[in-house]
């Protein structure tokens, strides 16, 4: 499946079916992340059930503390 992640076309494996899988794929599952899916911000509670489709636009921002 091809997604547009942070503006770039990215090919993800077929095992990535949901937002939660996608976060896992990018090793972000333990981080505090803001997810925007097709221009809507998704609450954390919806990550599991939100199914991805070819061409979906996803923006991912994770918080870090350093400085």
């Amino acid at each position, binding site marked *: 499946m091809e997604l547009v992640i*942070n*503006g*770039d076309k990215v090919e993800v494996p077929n095992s990535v079916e949901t937002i939660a899988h996608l976060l896992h794929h990018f090793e972000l599952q*333990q*981080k*505090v992340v*803001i997810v*925007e899916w097709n221009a809507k*911000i998704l*609450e*954390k509670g919806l990550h599991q059930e939100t199914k991805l489709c070819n061409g979906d636009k996803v*923006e*991912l*921002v*994770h*918080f*870090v*503390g*350093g*400085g």
Partner: protein
Amino acid sequence: MNDRYSRQELFAPIGSQGQTKLRKKHVLVIGAGALGTGSAEVLVRAGIGKLTIVDRDYVEWSNLQRQQLYTERDANLRIPKAVATKERLTLINSKVDIESHVMDVSVEEMEQLVKDVDLIMDATDNFDIRMIINDISQKYQIPWIYGACVGSYGITCTVLPGETPCLNCLLETVPMGGVTCDTAGIISPAVQMVVSYQTTEALKLLVEDYHALRKKLISFDLWKNHFAAINVEQMKNVSCLSCGPNPTYPYLAFSNQTKTAVLCGRNTVQVRPSKPMDRNLESLAKILSGQGGKISQNPYLLSFSIGNHRLVIFKDGRVLIHGTKDIAEAKTLYHRYMG
């Protein structure tokens, strides 16, 4: 009069009117590490009226690669960052009133520091203090600009009380642990990029060009060539305890603060997170293994020796820092390795 600000005044959105406004503004920078030295230098060169900067740490050799106001002399003599910063900034622009404090900032200190401040710049390295900044910002209606970086990644967001969501709205949970600049490293361009975003937003605010403010949370990874921008306006939580209509400013309450205590006669400081947590000692051991220290572990705790210090990390989140009685030093070590 000289023409030191001529190029900035030629820049139409600032102009001579903007320059006059800048001259009257007071900015508080929390932290004088990489982000803090970067922001402070930009703002002082730009000609703000007053800068207050605070930091609890002293200069070390590992700072010089990116903390732009410091020199080898500062590292050799272990000059407190707040002192070295003031010296250098005064040489750069003697017309700016610079106040600096060698200080471990918590709620009480923040309450004192924000008097007459127009803007708070976040240049800290942990979320404990950021949540305090966030609540103080709401309580006194002072904007603040979040900025952070690690590796080649950076993130920033501008918080305007009464308008934008606050950090408490954006974070469903406060990030705990994770990699830090001292465990995952950091490259200077990532710092500079965050500083550029933060200080540009600062200049817009200070010259009161509010329409020019960026309304998005942004992040980037310079090494991986990634960039993301999210419009977070819809994340404003109407019942937020920090920025909602009935605020309690939860992070200004004693119960929500990380506690420290010197353990009598043991040359040890205990650091206890505000809430019990379940630390993953395995992944922590992995993160710390690259640090050149010595690690030993049992099912209940992890012991990490580095230099003259030993950190003993319990599963419930507590950390004993052996080899110091100084709370500020203990906090520095805690946030350096625990995030």
